[in-house]
């Protein structure tokens, strides 16, 4: 504590702004909290759980019971820090402060707010370190590739191989349509009269026609379309297009036609299971016999992927199986570990929250209790009025109502700035300035909404980048434009 006090006193007499913001203690506390979260995250790794449940790394922290505690801790630190920081205010005391120093204050508050709400990253990082330690990255890419390649040969559910799943060649994919209310998929191959198909050419096909198109085989490895349990880069959803399916089809055909390669892959897959301690009873040669029936590769046999292995073995000692659930979970989770990175949109959400908090704090610090209270109450009333107005415009079926509302909001935000310059009373000029900076972060979303209405393809495909850039533009505008406005407002005499 003595050392800490000395550092604090040193900052006080040399860097008063840093001291006033309590930058050193608050950063030290936040750093400790990050360290704490890292440790908790590190020890939250559980080997058994890792093989039993797939985990979305981004959601892990928020679904843990530790999240509530962390949220509370973050709030307490923020309130405690604000309480200390508000003890002194050089700006309100009219001590010399340049634009640059004020902008620095804002950036420091933004940094603290951002660091204080991002403990999840340390928790996740801690978890990743321990999980990576126990699940090395060796061969993960090859294993995932092999797993995805062999996935279609491991299914024990026939439905996935039914001809309706076939996506290549044309006219597939097709959609099954029911003639009556019977929507039970399991009866797809028994109740032929109850359904029909709509092809990608929008034509109606009977079951018989489709069977004819598929060469008379109802089930085939080549039909397999389910992307369920495929492992994609970063475990994110991948929307296959026609070209993708063509490639997949050709790859499968090639593999099924090449018995040497097929056997080699099967052996490699069995080796993968053994390397990753997956229970299995697979024999490459038998498996090859089941699968390799060119040219149509009918689906005749299944390899059990039931987790109740003992039961399967007791009923039929010759049954072939693989503990597919564990294999999938381990590969999925391991793949997550090594492909995980913070998504830009997640970063945007955090930065927007930090920006919102810092803007609220600075508007309080740079005006007064009275101005800030008026601003808060006024903005609530304004939100209520605008809400009613928006609902009225929407309900009246106004043409282009979305665009009208967006333009109205933008006009109101510009109006705040005009009000600030035009109002002779310092109180109301301050309220208008607060409203302006509070509403400014919504401007990118409003502009985006305008472009969206116009179906601008650029905006739709770059929305995350757009919002990410907007945040930094706002920060820049705050430092270069807003800060001088507050400084000028503060110096102005009251009416």
């Amino acid at each position, binding site marked *: 504590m003595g050392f800490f006090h000395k550092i604090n006193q040193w900052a*006080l*007499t*040399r*860097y*008063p*702004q840093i*001291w*006033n913001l309590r930058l050193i203690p608050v950063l030290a506390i936040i750093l400790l909290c990050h360290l704490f979260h890292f440790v908790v995250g590190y020890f939250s790794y559980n080997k058994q759980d890792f093989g039993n449940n797939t985990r979305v790394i981004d959601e892990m922290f928020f679904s843990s019971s530790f999240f509530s505690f962390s949220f509370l801790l973050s709030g307490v630190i923020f309130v405690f820090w604000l309480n200390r920081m*508000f*003890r*002194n205010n*050089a700006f309100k*005391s*009219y*001590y*010399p*402060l340049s634009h640059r120093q004020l902008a620095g204050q804002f950036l420091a508050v933004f940094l603290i707010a951002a660091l204080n709400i991002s403990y999840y990253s340390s928790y996740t990082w801690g978890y990743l370190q321990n999980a990576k330690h126990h699940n090395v990255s060796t061969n993960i890419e090859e294993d995932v590739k092999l797993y995805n390649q062999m996935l279609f040969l491991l299914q024990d559910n026939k439905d996935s191989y039914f001809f309706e799943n076939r996506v290549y060649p044309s006219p597939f994919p097709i959609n099954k349509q029911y003639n009556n209310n019977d929507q039970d998929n399991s009866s797809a191959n028994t109740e032929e009269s109850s359904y029909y198909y709509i092809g990608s050419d929008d034509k109606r096909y009977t079951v018989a026609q489709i069977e004819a198109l598929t060469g008379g085989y109802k089930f085939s490895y080549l039909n397999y379309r389910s992307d369920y349990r495929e492992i994609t880069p970063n475990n994110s959803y991948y929307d296959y297009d026609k070209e993708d399916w063509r490639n997949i089809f050709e790859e499968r055909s090639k593999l099924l036609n090449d018995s040497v390669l097929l056997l080699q892959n099967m052996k490699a897959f069995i080796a993968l299971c053994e390397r990753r301690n997956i229970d299995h009873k697979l024999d490459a040669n038998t498996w090859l016999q089941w699968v390799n029936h060119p040219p149509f590769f009918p689906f005749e046999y299944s390899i059990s992927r039931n987790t109740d292995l003992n039961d399967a073995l007791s009923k039929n000692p010759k049954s072939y199986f693989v503990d597919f659930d564990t294999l999938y979970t381990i590969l999925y989770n391991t793949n997550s570990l090594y492909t995980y990175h913070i998504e830009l949109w997640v970063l945007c959400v955090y930065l927007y929250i930090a920006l919102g908090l810092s803007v609220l704090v600075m508007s309080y610090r740079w005006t007064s209790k009275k101005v800030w209270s008026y601003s808060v109450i006024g903005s609530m009333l304004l939100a209520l009025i605008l809400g009613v107005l928006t609902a009225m415009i929407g309900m009246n079926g106004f043409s282009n109502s979305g665009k009208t509302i967006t333009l109205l909001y933008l006009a109101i935000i510009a109006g705040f700035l005009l009000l600030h310059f035009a109002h002779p009373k310092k109180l109301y000029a301050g309220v208008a300035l607060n409203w302006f900076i509070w509403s400014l972060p919504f401007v990118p979303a409003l502009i985006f909404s305008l472009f969206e209405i116009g179906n601008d393809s650029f905006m739709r495909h770059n929305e995350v980048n757009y919002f990410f850039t907007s945040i930094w533009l706002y920060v820049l505008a705050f430092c270069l434009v807003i800060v001088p406005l507050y*400084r*000028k407002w*503060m*110096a*102005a*005499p*009251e*009416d």
Partner: protein
Amino acid sequence: MQSEPLQQYLNQSLEQVSQLYQHGDTELALRRLMDLALDTDHIEVFQAFIQYFLSEEKSPTNATQQWEKLEKIIALIQRIGVKELKQKGEVLITCKDLNKSYGTSTFKLGPISLKLERGNLLGLVGENGNGKTTLLRILAHELSYDTGTLHYNLSQGNDAYALRTRLAYIPQRSAKWLGPLQENLKFTLASYGITGAFNEAKILMVIARLGLWNYRHLEWSALSSGYKMRFELARTLLRCPDVLLLDEPLANLDIMAQQTILEDLRSLSNLRSRPMAMVLSSQQLYEVEKVSDSVLFLKEGKPMWKDNASTNATVLSSNEIQNEKALPLIVELEIDLQRVELQHLLAPLGLEKLQYNGGAYIAQFKSNVQMQELLKQLATSTARINYIRDISNSTRRFFVNA
């Protein structure tokens, strides 16, 4: 090597300190010496004083031993010399025909015209609600005015915020300080660019100068009103403002504290190193008049002087007040006599008016009557005189005649 006038000033001041000490006015001598220390603006002198106070705090010594210690500081001051960073007489604020009114209120301040010079102390007197605070706030650039001109010569350029860093306004009720007192002072000084060891030394020097040494470790809530005002003053002095505006700094202070703080204000506004212009509002007329270079009386928002006649913005300096020989004799008097008896006693002197405010009589005589004659006349009575004061030249009389 400092200039001849500064050397002369230093020698005279040190001589004065020495005499004061020899005559037993040790407290005053110490304050004068500390003023000189502040004039040096030198860390070595400040640290020497801090050592002095620390040693006295630890083991108090007698006056002779104290003087021996102080002589070492005097030698140090002589060696280092005093600085003159700003010169007296520079006009800092000029206002002409300032007027201010509040919405639908009938009150109107002005027209006020005045000049404030560096080193000047302007007393601002008047009853409650007559515009003292309004005028102070206008001068502090805290309140706008309706008409007239107000010009600042504080070399701040066009930057209104920078202007306000040079103007210090202490309101009657200052906000509570949060956190340790010394931290607040250090922060203020560091914000003005005085950092490191010099920051700490200067803080303690100012604390000592304002008689706050024994209170420096306390919290704000543990201080009395008088000491709160002193700490507020210390903080303001550390800002080295060009203009210091104080609203009723004597309110809630006992008479001794009032006199001490007024004396301090007088000498601090006239520090050789950095004199400042000071405006001081108060209802303690006599005390303010004693220390002010000029006095402005506000009645219903209007600047007033001679018998309510002048509505022009006239500020008379104390010297001018002294020279106004034509003013009639007006005295404030507390005596154990009934009104009729007193009227009878004073009638031979040409008593023109006698007012009783419940505590004291205000007697006005013809202009040729002298105070000595009045005293002789009173001596003819056996009635006990509790208090008497000549207020002919004081703004006190405006309150009476109202």
